[in-house]
């Protein structure tokens, strides 16, 4: 391991025959950062995650986790990762505890003492729930178990594919607290995909938006907020018709262009990540 980024993706490309999975994808995720990887269905988010885990083999390019090549030194890379798949596969005949115990024994890594219990408590998995067979558990409970299995080893890199899908608001909050806790500790880099943009906004330091297998934008939420187009409505004291404009960047030049007209009010629509992302989705669809 070196001091470079936690995840470095360089020109990563995956073709499924004639279909583009991802193409020339390049981005970095800094150590200790929480990175939201966004995109519409089929944009290439899961493909990227599965390439990081060497479950898929790249057509070209490479992915590096904590300085380790995900394909050439796949075992060492995977030793650094905790992964939550989008659709959590289960062994229906196992209880949650046995399921977690089995997964922790697969590669000999030790669950941090007390941490598993801490996660079980945080996600409200009671002793009875932990004993019940997974086939009898609700979707939300399985999702909680999925999050726990991904994080129980305190991996340096957690890759979470839609972690809050199917969780109730309390558990979404528990997830946010867990991510915040990991961020504070600074030992885990979180790379997550989600369609719940409010959650991304509240948990992620940076986001990357992928469309048609290509990264179309990347930056911190603040950068994006600054860069985003905002709808500004100016009403005048003299009763003249209001001006409604989509403004990018500071408002100064726009206000200066009013030549001293008597402003009654300036209303700026608050930045909404949903609108920003939806604009990219819509551009891709058109």
């Amino acid at each position: 391991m070196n001091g470079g980024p936690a995840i470095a993706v360089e020109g990563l490309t995956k073709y499924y025959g004639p279909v583009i999975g991802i193409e020339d994808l390049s981005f970095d995720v800094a150590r200790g950062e929480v990175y939201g990887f966004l995109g519409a269905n089929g944009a290439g988010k899961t493909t990227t995650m599965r390439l990081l885990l060497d479950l898929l083999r790249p057509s070209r390019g490479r992915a590096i986790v904590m300085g380790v090549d995900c394909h050439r030194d796949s075992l060492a890379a995977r030793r650094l990762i905790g992964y939550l798949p989008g659709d959590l596969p289960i062994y229906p005949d196992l209880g949650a505890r046995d399921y977690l115990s089995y997964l922790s024994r697969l590669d000999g890594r030790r669950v941090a003492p007390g941490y598993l219990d801490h996660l079980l408590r945080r996600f409200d998995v009671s002793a009875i729930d932990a004993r019940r067979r997974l086939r009898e558990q609700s979707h939300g409970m399985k999702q909680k178990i999925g999050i726990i299995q991904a994080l129980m080893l305190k991996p340096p890199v957690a890759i979470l594919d839609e972690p809050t899908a199917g969780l109730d608001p309390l558990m979404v909050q528990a997830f946010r607290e867990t991510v915040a806790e990991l961020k504070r500790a600074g030992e885990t880099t979180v790379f997550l995909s989600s369609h719940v943009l409010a959650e991304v906004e509240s948990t992620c330091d940076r986001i990357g938006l992928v469309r048609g297998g290509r990264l179309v934008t990347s930056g911190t939420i603040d950068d994006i907020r600054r860069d985003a187009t905002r709808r500004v409505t100016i009403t005048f004291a003299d009763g003249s018709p209001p001006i409604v404009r989509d403004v990018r960047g500071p408002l100064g030049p726009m206000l200066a262009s009013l030549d001293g007209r008597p402003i009654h009010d300036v209303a700026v629509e608050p930045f909404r990540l949903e609108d920003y992302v939806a604009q990219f989705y819509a551009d891709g669809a058109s």
Partner: protein
Amino acid sequence: MRAMLVRSAAQARYAIVGAYFLLCGFQLVIVGQATEIQRTQSFGRVAELMPAFLQRGLGSRAMLMATFRGTVAFGYFHPVVCLVVVLVAMYIATEPAHEIESGLVDLELARAVPRHRLLTRSLILAEAAIAGAVVLMGIGTVIGARLFGAPVAELPSATTRLHLLLNLAAIASCFAAFALLVAALSRRWTTAFTTAALAAVVLYLMDFLAIGWPLLRNIAWISPFHYYPALSVIAGESALARDITTLAAASVVCAGAAYWFFARRDL
């Protein structure tokens, strides 16, 4: 590896235990039947019932089937027995395809588990299941002989029984390796298992029909069952070492190809 083996065994337990009951029970029944036929001295009538094409194809060895020894030994190469042992082995060996289909492979291989471990696990478990099956069949014969008061001296010799069971295990191992190869190339368990199972049935029929159909005799060598000449084993005329070596070589080729493909594919 141990955790994966235990988990896979638990997953396949119903198929394994069910097959074991069937195989062991089959030996009890066949020993009981042979004892009854022997007691009523009806083996002559059994010989009369044998189809003419079998008598022509098998020659003098066909008459072994109409003896107490041959009937008891039939429990080791009856089509149902052969196919049950083979199918159980293939059921276990195709588990990697199930793991891909269900997504379990994402959980297992998201950890520092080498890809080849999934195949090795399935292969070890399949071999263990085969070993368990043939051992239980042997035990079934002994229990049957005691239970029905069979004439112990007229049972197939222990060496003959051992050779038959070894040969059967070698065939099942060969099919397990073939099933592993199919699983290593598949995304769906049903595709993998059905392909492997159909291949086993077709290859069995090919070998069986080759007894009376000269055209098939020319290509019967491709069937693993061709290397299980049970009546020759009973008659003490088989080239057991050659047959087992051939089956083992085919197993190694199939398993090797499975490892090669699995290491390179997208999961």
